[in-house]
């Protein structure tokens, strides 16, 4: 039940005064500092976080906490607008851009009393699956520093050891690393083609991609309007359910959110899986699948089978075209979405003054990296009438 989640446990501790929101916030901030080498955070909002923690403490003293999330430290991927805090999308195009508003999901978290520690690192404009392509450098997987990883490595010189680390996956790598290294209890990512699930798997945390239309995208700097969703990263499934419960629901500012009333739910304590049918898509056994992954996949299927669930092979015949479809749709929408970055209203602006068009062109040449430019050009090609 939700009562077993980490957020619930911390919430109980806060209610009972075993720890205060300020202490919790300070400890998390200290951990952020001592894990700086992970490069998970682009901006740490220390002052505002401590202020939020103090306000939370006042509410707990009055016996009026706002809910399970009151006082809980969280982190937000740096492609969500956060009022008064720099939002960069890990790009030169938005360095120095201070958001004038909060994304709906950020506002909801703050309304629930969550403490925003900072903005996390990502691939530039969320384009990538390694969290290696942002202008602030790559994010390091906390597991690079685990005993298991160290033991696997061949003894190296100190400088080689320094550069011996593994990636977090992406594009929400900073969020995944932040949660995985215990600097926060939950983090927001975004997921278009796996950008929350991928780094969650790499960093050993829970990554939830909510169904499109459930959670508002207002304030999430868009990559692909038809597919983007805010993603949830936590250390346990119950926490993901808590986050989902506080974020879901229709938003008049996002017309792609469904209008049905969202009913928050409790996760059942599922001990009987005999009524579950688990489908194993045979096409997912794709050429090039590593033997380690195949073994883990079989193990998971066996776990379900041995627990009494019905495990059947299914076919998703167009699987191999899904990534191609994604590629075309993604680049087309990116070409459109990136058109707003011209230097005029916000973000980087080139010194070029000859004409509007040449200023736009120079700004975009200076502001975007290869990946972004590549997708824009491909997208424009696919959108050509010919």
């Amino acid at each position, binding site marked *: 039940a939700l009562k077993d989640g980490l957020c619930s446990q911390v919430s109980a501790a806060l209610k009972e005064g075993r720890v205060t929101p300020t202490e919790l916030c300070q400890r998390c901030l200290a951990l952020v500092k001592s894990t700086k080498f992970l490069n998970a955070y682009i901006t740490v909002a220390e002052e505002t976080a401590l202020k939020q923690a103090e306000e939370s403490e006042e509410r707990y003293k009055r016996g009026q906490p706002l809910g399970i999330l009151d006082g809980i430290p969280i982190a937000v991927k740096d492609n969500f607008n956060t009022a008064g805090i720099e939002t960069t999308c890990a790009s030169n195009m938005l360095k120095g851009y201070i958001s004038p508003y909060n994304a709906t999901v950020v506002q909801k978290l703050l309304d629930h009393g969550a403490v925003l520690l900072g903005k996390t690192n990502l691939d530039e404009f969320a384009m990538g699956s390694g969290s290696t392509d942002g202008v602030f450098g790559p994010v390091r997987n906390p597991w690079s520093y685990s005993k298991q990883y160290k033991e696997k490595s061949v003894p190296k010189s100190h400088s080689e050891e320094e550069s011996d680390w593994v990636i977090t996956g992406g594009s929400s790598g900073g969020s995944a690393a932040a949660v995985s290294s215990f600097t926060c209890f939950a983090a927001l990512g975004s997921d278009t083609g796996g950008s929350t699930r991928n780094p969650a798997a790499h960093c050993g945390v829970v990554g939830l991609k909510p169904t499109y239309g459930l959670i508002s995208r207002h304030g999430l700097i868009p990559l692909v309007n038809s597919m983007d969703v805010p993603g949830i990263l936590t250390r346990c499934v119950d926490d993901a359910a808590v986050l989902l419960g506080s974020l879901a629901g229709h938003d008049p500012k996002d017309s792609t959110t469904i209008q049905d009333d969202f009913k928050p739910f409790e996760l059942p304590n599922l001990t009987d899986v005999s009524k579950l049918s688990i489908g194993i898509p045979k096409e997912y056994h794709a050429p090039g699948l590593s033997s380690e992954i195949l073994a883990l996949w079989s193990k998971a299927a066996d776990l379900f089978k041995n627990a009494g669930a019905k495990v059947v092979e299914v076919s998703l015949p167009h699987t191999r075209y899904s990534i191609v479809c994604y590629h075309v749709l993604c680049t087309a929408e990116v070409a459109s979405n990136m058109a707003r970055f*011209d230097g005029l209203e916000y973000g980087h602006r080139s010194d070029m003054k000859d004409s509007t068009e040449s200023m736009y062109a120079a700004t975009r040449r200076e502001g975007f990296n290869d990946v972004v430019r590549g997708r824009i050009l491909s997208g424009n090609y696919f959108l050509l009438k010919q």
Partner: protein
Amino acid sequence: QKVSVEVLDHLEHLALVDFRDSEGVERLQKAIQFADQLQEVNTDGVEPMDSVLEDRWCLYLREDDVTEGNCTKELLENAREKLEEYFVAPPGNIPLPKLEERETFLQGS
């Protein structure tokens, strides 16, 4: 089939970003090649999908009431060049120089 220089130039104009080098052009070639796989799929009789929400999506019109605004100051905050309540742009109506006159990687092609 390689993409012609005319099309590449056209794309640079449309996108207002540059290919920068042969790697950039190669990237596009590979992207087109990759996407060509879709030609194999028979889509006869398949209705195009306009949203993943399919029939759950009804784009609605709301009442034409002003519910927010009056934030000129905040909106101008992030602009580098402004004058009073205007964003200042260099002169418009001047098209980008043609391929021969521009400094672009495509010139050499």
